[in-house]
């Protein structure tokens, strides 16, 4: 029964710890913060996204930029995170569009929170993912993003996305586009 396994494991942990000679535990110290570069986090975010083979457009006219991208892609079946198709149908879609709740400049990472939108499949299944994020939601570091997420109760599913999907499992050769999207477009909406 699960309970006796629980007690057994916890008991084993306690017994073995009690048997242990005293350790010398180092002080738990936060490492010195790396000074963040003075340059504009939005531009740094763009550079970071591009360094992982994503596309990044900074604009004050997000609607038009989005239209342009969709035209270039000649996309017919487009899934939106505010009203996504069901799990079965989504495999037939070419583009998934979502917003992002935050973005991390140092790594080019998008932060998507399931409490805010239904991003899980839209940002994963179609071969192209387009994400729109407000310029004001760009933070400097990973630690800033984690702190932000902790401000309220952690939602059931949060996803960090850094570039399109990839693998290096075959001879360590990089291949872009495995199970997740092959293309990632990030539109940074500077009007907000």
């Amino acid at each position, binding site marked *: 029964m699960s309970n006796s396994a629980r007690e057994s494991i916890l008991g084993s942990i*306690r017994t073995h710890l009690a048997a242990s000679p005293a350790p010398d535990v*180092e002080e738990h110290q936060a490492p010195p913060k790396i000074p963040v570069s003075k340059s504009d986090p939005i531009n740094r975010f763009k550079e970071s996204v591009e360094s992982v083979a994503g596309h990044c457009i900074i604009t004050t006219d997000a609607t038009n930029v989005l239209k342009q991208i969709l035209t270039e892609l000649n996309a017919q079946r487009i899934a939106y995170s505010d009203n996504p198709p069901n799990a079965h149908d989504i495999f037939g879609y070419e583009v998934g569009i979502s917003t992002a709740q935050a973005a991390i400049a140092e790594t080019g990472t998008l932060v998507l929170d*399931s409490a805010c939108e239904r991003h899980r499949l839209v940002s994963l299944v179609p071969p192209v993912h387009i994400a729109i994020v407000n310029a004001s939601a760009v933070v400097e570091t990973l630690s800033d993003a984690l702190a932000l997420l902790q401000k309220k109760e952690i939602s059931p*599913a949060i996803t960090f996305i*850094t570039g399109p999907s990839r*693998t290096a499992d075959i*001879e360590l*050769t990089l291949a872009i586009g495995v*199970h997740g999207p092959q293309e990632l477009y990030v539109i940074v909406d500077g009007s907000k």
Partner: protein
Amino acid sequence: MNHLSSETFKENARAALADVQLRGALKNATSLFGARRKEAAASLPNWEDLRTQARAIKDEVLLHLDRYLEEFVRNAESRGATVHWARDAAEANTIICGLAKERNARIVVKSKSMTTEETHLNDALEAAGMQVIETDLGEYIIQLAHEPPSHIIAPAIHKTRQQIGELFTAELGMPPTDNVDQMTSTARAKLRDRFAAADVGISGVNFAVAETGTIVIVENEGNIRLTTSLPRLHIAVMGIEKVIPRFTDLDVFLKLLPRSGTGQRLTTYQSFITGTKRAPTDEGPDELHIVLLDNGRSRMLAHPVTRQSLACIRCGACLNACPVYQQVGGHAYGSVYPGPIGAVITPQLMGIQKAAQLPYASSLCGACREVCPVKIDIPRLLLHLRGEISPRKGSRAERVAFKMWARVMTSPSLYKLSSVAGRILQRVTPISRAWTNGRDLRPIESKSFHDLWSNE
């Protein structure tokens, strides 16, 4: 599956050394991995501080593992997860097979989890009548090839692209090619509909946050996200040592793990999963079950030297740095966990009798300790294990030899005599024969330094 055994490491290694293709693949992979890791570490000026902090966090957790596990479980359960405790591999497999059978599961998709390899979960699921599909590309490759993984993070690293191409042609009907993009698209296409059809998704866990009950899983391909969001039941399997105290601690570990493992700043996806969905119409599985596995881990808590084994974050950096692994690869170790970390945890998890050779398969060079993001002193651990094994399990001849050695080294007259004996016997001892296999042997000098000093 043709598993080699740890008990025959020496023979396994010999066979590996004769495999030219394997050695070529290993050389390329380990040097590339090593170079990328080095660059990524150098790009962070506070890398050493991060290592220290990560180790301090792990030490803190391990010293109070019971408390942090209980906190994790409490928080995960309050958010809708069901947590199971498994004392050993068999119990874990029973629990997981039970969960799948209760829901009449036919198809199980899996993302890469060393812990489930450790328990041989796939065999158990298949025996229970389920179809198991590995979705990580490297795992998919070795599943098709009926081989165990040879590396902690790149399971198919021992295979050349030609070998993989031939495998895909034979098993999947792919038109012959050794183009990596084409092979990747073939795998993607084949696996696509499996995700949608799967009843159960099984994943591992990289970090389990006690403070929030969150499990964190990192990947590049997207198969973990598919595995953990499409099927109605998600089972996450984790060793009990995966717990970290606070959500903010993730910063340190997410900086160290990708850089140490693949040289990336961050892997493409991190999934932070906390309990189950709030409303039935929300995305995601209906159920989340988390299986906590002991299987010998709690025993390692009994000594500070062995306790550090549990700090491992499974990055694989030590494998890439190890001169022994670089030559023989992962299969020779006969364990799910090869390389330096494998040499120390395999005997502890599986029992010393089953893996007694492994702690001796090292030159103690310390390269592993240098690259370990959580500063595990693997050479110290190896010596600790040797200290447990040699006096009891070392060959009789060896034990006697060292007793004699101690007598010689503590008696000046015996020491002098031994050099005389050495000069006579040097070419015929088993030690000399093993040495002269590939190397010339320098003869013992006719006059020792002691002798020369006397003439001063």
